[in-house]
């Protein structure tokens, strides 16, 4: 037992867990997460008595705390299922496709996406991201200061998402509001209302695609040419796909892009260095994706098995966090230091194994394009004086605001 009492929650430690493997670390509610989540993950990873431990927090679950073991879990869906994305599982919630499917079912749904989200299909988004970034910066540049999240890193991924599903990006603002209501709504009614509006909107988008028959954008492709078991994709599956892009491709990009600008605004010299050397500009988001990873995924045991010295029971849950794996000092020396030239940066910021982020090529394109357009336009970017930054941290990790100023 490390640091605390064994039974902090109603559920006692199950018999199959050895006492020396038990901790009370709470990766969802520890108050230190608001200040420096990655520092805490690194601390836990370094102090863990074993690479897999049982925590009594959140009803009891395993935490995997080494890069190697996390990669192995993510690469082994036969034992580590994706069927629940939350701890504890959300009963009765509709399946997220392909996120909550396991192979071989997963493979069918996933391959449909790869066709339209591969590195070569992404060229188009590069131009769009640059144009959108410039439009958004036009609105604030003269003011010399803004909350960069409201001004840029929230609306941009939303516009690009609307573009991807072939909807007019004029409706971005409305869309951003629904998204906030969905993720942060203060009560269930607001959240359900937002979900209904989003679904109605996605339904409209799908209907439009059916009518025009086009398959150029991702949604058009899924609607008009996608095939699962040689059949056109059903309406229900199309809705589930579209909803997942919405969940997977907005806040993750917002959080990562914000982290990039946060680093630049707090490290004098970084901005010039990035503008001078294009190869840094490509490696920089990768190192930010490592040091400030934004996703902690969850897996659930498919059956009883023995793994790395512990006995696992069917339905046990695991945090297999990319944000933990990427600050493991055994894999990344001096893990909390950002090093643009870090060698062997095999980070898993986009996950690993069959669920590796389907949008990773798109996200990378977006990040590099935005850095390249925006950095020259906001010289000497820095935090506004007196700024106290705060994180939200759980399955997704990100800043809540980024008040910055620059020279005009």
């Amino acid at each position, binding site marked *: 037992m490390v640091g605390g009492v064994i039974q902090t929650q109603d559920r006692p430690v199950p018999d199959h867990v050895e006492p020396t493997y038990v901790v009370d670390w709470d990766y969802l509610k520890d108050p230190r997460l608001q200040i420096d989540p990655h520092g805490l993950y690194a601390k836990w990873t370094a102090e863990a008595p074993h690479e897999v431990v049982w925590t009594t927090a959140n009803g009891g679950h395993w935490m995997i705390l080494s890069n190697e073991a996390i990669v192995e879990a993510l690469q082994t869906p036969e034992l580590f299922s994706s069927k629940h994305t939350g701890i504890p599982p959300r009963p009765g919630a509709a399946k997220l496709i392909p996120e909550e499917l396991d192979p071989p079912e997963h493979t069918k749904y996933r391959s449909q996406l*790869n*066709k339209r989200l591969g590195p070569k299909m992404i060229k188009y988004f590069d131009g769009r991201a640059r144009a959108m970034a410039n439009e958004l910066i036009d609105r604030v540049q003269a003011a010399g200061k803004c909350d960069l999240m409201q001004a840029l890193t929230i609306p941009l991924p939303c516009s690009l998402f609307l573009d991807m599903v072939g909807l007019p990006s004029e409706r971005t603002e409305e869309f951003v509001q629904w998204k906030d209501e969905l993720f942060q709504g203060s009560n269930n009614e607001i959240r359900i209302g937002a979900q209904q509006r989003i679904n109605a909107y996605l339904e409209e988008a799908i209907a439009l695609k059916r009518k025009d028959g086009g398959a150029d954008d991702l949604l058009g492709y899924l609607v008009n040419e996608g095939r699962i078991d040689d059949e056109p994709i059903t309406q229900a599956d199309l809705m589930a796909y579209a909803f997942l892009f919405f969940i997977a491709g907005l806040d993750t990009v917002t959080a990562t892009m914000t982290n990039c600008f946060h680093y630049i605004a707090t490290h004098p010299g970084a901005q010039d260095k990035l503008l001078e050397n294009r190869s840094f500009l490509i490696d920089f988001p*990768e190192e930010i994706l490592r040091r400030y990873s934004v996703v902690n995924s969850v897996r659930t045991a498919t059956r009883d098995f023995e793994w790395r010295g512990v006995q696992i029971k069917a339905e046990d849950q695991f945090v297999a966090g990319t944000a933990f794996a990427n600050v493991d000092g055994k894999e990344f020396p001096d893990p909390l230091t950002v090093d643009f030239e870090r060698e062997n*940066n*095999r*980070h898993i910021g986009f996950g690993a194994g*069959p669920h590796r982020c389907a949008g990773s*090529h798109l996200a990378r394109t977006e990040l590099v394009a935005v850095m390249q357009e925006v950095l020259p336009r906001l010289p000497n970017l820095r935090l506004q004086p007196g700024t106290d930054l705060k994180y939200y941290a759980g399955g997704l990790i990100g800043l809540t605001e980024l008040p910055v100023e620059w020279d005009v």
Partner: protein
Amino acid sequence: MELKITVDRSKCSGHARCAMKGPDVYELDDEGFCISDGKIVTDESLRTQVIHGMKACPERAISVIEA
């Protein structure tokens, strides 16, 4: 010199990191999966790209042997 690249296709999940660090060595298919399994590199000037690409693979799917 002769470097032989092996890519474990069952592990490769299409991160494209190999091609980012070794653009003149590693080739990707349209979905972003590495198709350089079995490739033999003889050009000494590409050695760093071969090695850096291998070491950037998050899935540990690439191995390189001095042939």
